[in-house]
């Protein structure tokens, strides 16, 4: 295992726990995306993993070493970039590269030269005067050039324009192509998560919700829509099962995401149990955005102004 979280818990002075007993294992060679809304605990989990914060319970490991015992020889194999990366602003780009190189035995000059060219970074400009996108590129360069076994990126794309995102994606795909590299990525950006991650985990209120390989989750799930004239379209009897997420009835049409819908004829039969006159079924494997949003909305009572909330076993409508 490259990365392990074991009952990791963090309680800040105020509010509910930021993380409560998070357990998760990320094997070597896996590209894992930690997803979840703001405040779900993504950044806290990463900071605890890197020993930038102390847990109030449980623990985390990298390379089987507990976070508080990470030594420089471990850190030389870990790359870390956060959204608001601290950089030595007084250094020029070329000075920054010369400053980092002696700290990492695995530093690769050829890769460095290629990334500098690819990122088009102004060598003689001070880091403090770079744009936000250029700073992020410098940070990513500083983490990739020693070819770490584990790369940890905390919201690397937020607030960056499309051109810079594409440059970063190019560099990260190349990184992933070089052997068994492990990536832990926290992000809101579905496009980048979908491209980079082979496995996802959704954090919810400090705990791990839906998780698994992206292909399997999307291949098993179905984005469902059908028509019904039933007067009870919005309140079917019996109520839909808990693994039908974000069931919304809107002027004769019903939509939701079924977590386990690969057997489409069984799914259609199950739908007819709830809506006997259901017809014009449309099933397709959802994209990651649909799966994510419908999963997080699975307890919502009403999703839109002209929609009607559907009761589910876990969130009974009043």
């Amino acid at each position, binding site marked *: 295992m490259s990365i392990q979280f074991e009952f990791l818990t963090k309680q800040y002075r105020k509010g509910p726990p930021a993380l409560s007993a998070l357990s998760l294992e990320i094997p070597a*060679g896996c*590209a894992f995306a930690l997803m979840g809304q703001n405040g779900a605990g993504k950044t806290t989990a990463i900071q605890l993993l890197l020993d930038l914060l102390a847990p109030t319970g449980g623990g985390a490991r990298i390379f089987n070493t507990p976070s508080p015992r990470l030594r420089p020889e471990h850190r030389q194999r870990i790359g870390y970039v956060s959204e608001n990366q601290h950089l030595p602003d007084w250094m020029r780009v070329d000075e920054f590269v010369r400053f980092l190189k002696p700290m990492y035995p695995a530093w690769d000059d050829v890769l460095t030269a290629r990334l500098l060219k690819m990122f088009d970074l102004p060598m003689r400009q001070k880091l403090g005067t770079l744009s936000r996108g250029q700073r992020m590129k410098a940070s990513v360069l500083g983490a990739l050039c020693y070819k770490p076994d584990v790369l940890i990126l905390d919201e690397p794309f937020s607030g960056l324009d499309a051109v810079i995102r*594409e440059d970063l*994606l*190019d560099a990260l*795909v*190349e990184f*992933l*192509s070089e052997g068994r590299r492990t990536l832990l990525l926290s992000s809101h950006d*579905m*496009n980048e998560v*979908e*491209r*980079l*991650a*082979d496995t996802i985990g959704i954090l919810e209120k400090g705990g791990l919700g839906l998780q698994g390989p*992206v*292909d399997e989750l*999307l*291949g098993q799930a179905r984005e469902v829509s059908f028509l019904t004239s039933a007067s009870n379209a919005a309140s079917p009897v019996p109520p839909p099962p808990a693994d039908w997420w974000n069931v919304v009835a809107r002027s004769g049409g019903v939509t939701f995401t079924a977590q386990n819908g690969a057997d489409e004829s069984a799914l259609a039969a199950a739908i007819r149990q709830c809506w006997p006159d259901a017809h*014009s079924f*449309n099933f*397709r*494997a*959802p*994209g*990651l*955005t*649909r799966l994510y949003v419908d999963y997080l909305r699975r307890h919502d009572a009403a999703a839109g102004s002209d929609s009607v909330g559907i009761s589910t076993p876990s969130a009974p409508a009043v």
Partner: protein
Amino acid sequence: MNLFAIDLKAGAPIYEQVLYAARKAILSGELKPGDPFPSVREIAAHLRINPNTVQKALTALKTEGLVETVPGIGNRVRESPEPRAAERAALLNGDLEALVLRARQLRLTLPELEAALRAQWSRFQD
């Protein structure tokens, strides 16, 4: 090689889009048996996606007998018998679904749709 030209769309799994594009290129004859098939690294870099995802798609293509890896040379489209009609027909699924949906909206019966289809088909017969 059209696999590089695929435009990844949001709203559908990337793995399936890559697999579909590759199947389509091979079964439609755009890629001929013996033609080189790009490596995992090339496809990943061009589409900007995780190589693990590409690897899974490639494994599926090999299982289906569409692509083979030749040691020392690389991937190539396999010398294979004519693809089965069912495989080629499966490429039409999306279009057929749209057609059936539209026909049902217009309240056409299946025989009426068949007749319309036959009429169109005969227009292209030599």
